[in-house]
């Protein structure tokens, strides 16, 4: 999954909670969360319809076209 040495970086598009953002393809989920100031927050994350366990945030790199859902607990009945 890691980019090969010398590989040119290319811009990728990722949908996060329905909003499309562009990133460098070497970005990990953990780095993304850090950029959004969500590191350590009580969140859960789904990538392309599958739960991504917290323990994998560091290893998992985002790919072009990924769809992420990041959720929190809110008041509800």
């Amino acid at each position, binding site marked *: 999954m890691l980019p090969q040495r010398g590989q040119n970086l290319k811009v990728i598009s990722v949908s*996060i*909670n*329905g*909003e499309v953002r562009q990133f460098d393809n070497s970005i990990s989920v953990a780095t993304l969360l850090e*950029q*959004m*100031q*969500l590191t350590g*927050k*009580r*969140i*859960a*994350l*789904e990538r392309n*319809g599958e*739960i991504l*366990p*917290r323990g994998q945030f560091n290893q998992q790199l985002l790919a072009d076209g990924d769809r992420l*859902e*990041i*959720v*929190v*607990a*809110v*008041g*509800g*009945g």
Partner: protein
Amino acid sequence: MNKDTLLIAGKSYNSRLLIGTGKYKDFSETQAAVEASGAEIITIAIRRSNIGQNPNEPNLLDVLPPSKYTLLPNTAGCYSADDAVRTLRLARELLNGHSLVKLEVLGDPQSLYPNVVETLAAAKTLVADGFQVMVYTSDDPIIAKQLEDIGCVAIMPLASLIGSGMGILNPWNLQLIMDRVQVPVIVDAGVGTASDAAIAMELGCHGVLMNTAIAAAQQPVLMASAMKQAVEAGRMAFLAGRMPKKLYSASPSSPTSGLIN
């Protein structure tokens, strides 16, 4: 006498009042109402997080820590089995593997009436996936029994529509459900004021779940306290066993002899 507790999925609860955390003015009012209600099981919803636009957004779980309360994530707003299952898988990840959940699959946004076909399908998937499912449903006794057979740990029929405050509209159906299922029956939705909660408990329901009745009261914290007492009073009245109803009383409360002349 053994302590009268509510047993759900092998865990005992002292309070038979379950409350939701929606529609409060702010988290401090939510916290005060939860405290006043004495509820141990608190429902929460799962929604998209901010993605950087509001980094200091307060988090409900900081106010209602999972160490203190049994948090019951719901699937409010889900209209299909697939959406409900996805939501609860996210909730389980969010709550570190916590598997007790409230399943509700709605039929339409006007009535918020449950779609029992989708509810049954979602319940099957969730039970197979290891969830302990407390299920919101209509007051149909046949569906209630099917949900129990699937393996749901509590059946939660509506007393009237969500958020309507119309009270217990069909006590006979609630009774039919209680006659048929072994797991706890918890009235979910429709309670408007304290007497509604007491009536549900007097019927023999094992608990009452409410949100709007407290949150939309003029003084939510005071209403939370009223609901606590209503649920306790209704439960005690059920256990005590009410006197039979009689059109005419043939037995006065005071002695019939020794009257002055």
